């Protein structure tokens, strides 16, 4: 007992001496070596972390599959970054088996509950075993939807899969397998800016889609569209991609009657005006798909005033011809829109010149914004196909541009007036200076100076 105590006492003494020595050494070695060691620690740690993780969490599945070739290969790093690994879902959660065993036969035995990789047709039910289980998913993210599987069953993909077509997309085609990232991760294949490319993997592949006899130019067209320019070009995530109009898990092309509803989810006012317009019934009777008739679908371009009217390229000419009331109305609407647009430009130019001339026109420029708003309203109101509705906005805008242009002219006149006044006052100043110089000369040339 005494010996044991003695040993402990010696050990504690040695630790005390070591600590004292460390303090002394630290003070002598100086901050440089400490800083070097400190930095080295941070430099080395990330390189060693994965090894430590593996050592701490034994996973024989990854040990083997990380060394196998495709299709059995699983990249350790990619899996570690996936949402499943991040949430603690391991290989055995989906595939069963025993990941703690180094013996492949035992690890992948039926006794250990090994399920292996599901058949392609089984993938949706395989994923749904968790993702359609609200009680289970609540453990990870209570706000996560669990209706993906039921939606999938209503989709074209789901219908065809049920008929035995394994060509169609299943969960892993869009989301990936072992590399699944959350949809709000910009690297995810289903992040809004990546969705079109993900869909395009199949839908832009003419050979793959040949059996379905549907066009494969959607991606090419979409990439030229205003929606793509906003979403990918400007990073505006509110701009639509494939799934915005077609749905994601319940993906299906909108029917002729529902096109307006789909577009109306964003373009509310245009849709309301269209529904109340004579075009609504006319299009329905002709079987034309609402918005798409004039604007097209995947390759939709930013609208311009040239869309409406009777000139070459105007969409109105698709249905209307000379002599019809609709033809005349289209021509008039085009003229009015371009007139207001030109008036806004003229006012802006004159105000810009006045501003450069140094006249304060901030308030008038703000007033001109109202005319721009009226022009936008007029452009929206053409969906009513009612000349009176369009006229109201055009007239309101023209009233503003007339006032702002007049104010711009007055501001330029003011700038001119100021400069004339300046030259007159400079002339007077020069005369006064000359007079003073003469007075000084006279004073200092006198006999009494």
């Amino acid at each position: 007992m005494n010996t044991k105590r003695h040993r402990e006492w010696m050990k504690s003494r040695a630790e005390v001496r070591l600590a004292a020595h460390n303090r002394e050494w630290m003070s002598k070695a100086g901050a440089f070596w400490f800083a070097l060691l400190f930095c080295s620690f941070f430099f080395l740690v990330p390189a060693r972390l994965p090894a430590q993780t593996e050592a701490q969490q034994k996973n024989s599945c990854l040990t083997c599959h990380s060394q196998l070739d495709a299709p059995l290969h699983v990249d350790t790093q990619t899996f570690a970054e996936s949402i499943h690994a991040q949430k603690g879902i391991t290989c055995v959660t989906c595939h069963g088996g025993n990941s703690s065993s180094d013996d492949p036969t035992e690890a992948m035995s039926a006794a250990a509950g090994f399920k292996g990789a599901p058949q392609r047709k089984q993938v949706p039910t395989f994923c749904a075993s968790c993702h359609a289980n609200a009680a289970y998913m609540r453990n990870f993210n209570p706000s996560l939807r669990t209706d993906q599987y039921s939606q999938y069953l209503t989709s074209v993909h789901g219908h065809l899969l049920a008929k035995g077509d394994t060509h169609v997309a299943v969960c892993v085609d869009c989301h990936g397998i072992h590399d699944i990232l959350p949809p709000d991760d910009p690297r995810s294949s289903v992040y809004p800016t990546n969705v079109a490319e993900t869909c395009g993997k199949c839908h832009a592949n003419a050979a793959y889609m040949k059996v379905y006899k549907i066009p494969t130019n959607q991606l090419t067209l979409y990439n030229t569209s205003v929606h793509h320019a906003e979403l990918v070009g400007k990073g505006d995530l509110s701009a639509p991609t494939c799934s915005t109009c077609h749905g994601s898990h319940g993906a299906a092309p909108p029917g002729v009657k529902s096109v307006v509803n789909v577009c109306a989810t964003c373009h509310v006012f245009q849709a309301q005006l269209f529904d109340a317009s004579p075009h609504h019934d006319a299009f329905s009777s002709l079987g034309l798909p609402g918005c798409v008739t004039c604007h097209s679908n995947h390759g939709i371009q930013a609208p311009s005033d040239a869309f409406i009217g009777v000139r070459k390229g105007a969409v109105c000419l698709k249905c209307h011809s000379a002599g019809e009331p609709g033809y005349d109305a289209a021509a008039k609407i085009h003229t009015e829109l371009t007139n207001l647009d030109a008036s806004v430009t003229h006012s802006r130019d004159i105000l810009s010149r006045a501003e450069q001339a140094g006249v304060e026109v901030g308030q008038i420029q703000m007033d001109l914004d109202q005319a721009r708003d009226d022009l936008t309203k007029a452009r929206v109101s053409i969906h009513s196909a009612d000349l009176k509705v369009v006229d109201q906005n055009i007239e309101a805008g023209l009233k503003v541009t007339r006032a702002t242009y007049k104010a711009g002219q007055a501001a330029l006149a003011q700038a001119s007036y100021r400069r004339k006044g300046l030259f007159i006052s400079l002339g007077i100043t020069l005369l006064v200076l000359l007079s003073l110089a003469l007075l000084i000369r006279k004073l200092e040339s006198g006999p009494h100076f």
Partner: protein
Amino acid sequence: MSAPAKIRNWLDERFGWDQLMAFVRHKTVPTHRFSYFYFLGGMTLFLFGLQVVTGILLLMYYRPTPDGAFESVQYIMTQVPFGWLIRSIHSWGANAMILTAIAHMFSVFFLKSYRKPRELTWLSGMILLFLVLAFGFSGYLLPWNMLSLFATKVGTNMAAQVPLLGHWILVFLRGGPDVTGATLTRFFGFHVAVLPGLATLLIGLHLLLVQRFGMSVPPTVEAEWKVDPSKVQELRFFPNFFLRELMAWYIALAALGALAAFRPWELGQKADLFASAPAGIRPEWYFMFMFQTLRFLPAKVGPFAGDLVGVLGFGAAALVWTCLPFFDNDKRGRGKRWIAGAGVFALTYFVGATAYAYLVAR
């Protein structure tokens, strides 16, 4: 007896008018190769007067509230007859006044005019210069636009760096922890009441001291005149010097008018307390050298924050500079060399750092 003679008699009986006129007639100004620098003080005084007149006119329409300040200045610039001219002359004139005040200070420094017995003249002049800078700082916020709002935030933040009293000074200047409408009304009060009152008193004292001790003659000229008294030249203050000064004032007024006509002072965007800081925030040119210095300084200088070192450094430099006549007590009257060197360094640094700051901003 004619009417003017009657008035003169009336004044003479009561105020000793003839005696006053005799004094004015006998007042002279030394004439030598540096005489042109004598115009700077008078020019600064003229510009101050112009600021008072234009400032009073602006007061007729200006509203010192967050909801009314910008709009009232906009109204002055667009609706009030010649409002644009008055406001532009006030803004350009303020800059011109600060420029001539700084030039006046350096000319007094390099001509050694602060020597005994003019120590108090220098001291009152330095305090006036600080007041003029305070006029500029407080007036910059009054149009209540984005640039002025954020420049004021940056400027008042600098004051917060002062040890112990920093936070108190910040709250005192801002009327609260942030720049708000309370800051605007406070700055307005400083700009139109506190500062003009103090400045008027100090200008009176400064002029009295100038009058009491007369115009200083630079040591080199003084030495030449001692050797050869026949070289001494003087000009009668009234009317000869005064008429020359009047010519300079006319030229200054014409220059301000031209600037107002061709480059009216901008109004910018109305201040938005919730907006993020716009690009290109910077103080007025006369604070740029300090702004640039704080940028030069690292975040930490030894154990102290860089900004704190900068603010304390400028405070100490301003104190030493103000008390300069009490250091420069060379018996030969030529001044100490290191002080002249410090002056050259100060001028070079002021011009260099300001120019560099504008070059970087471009």
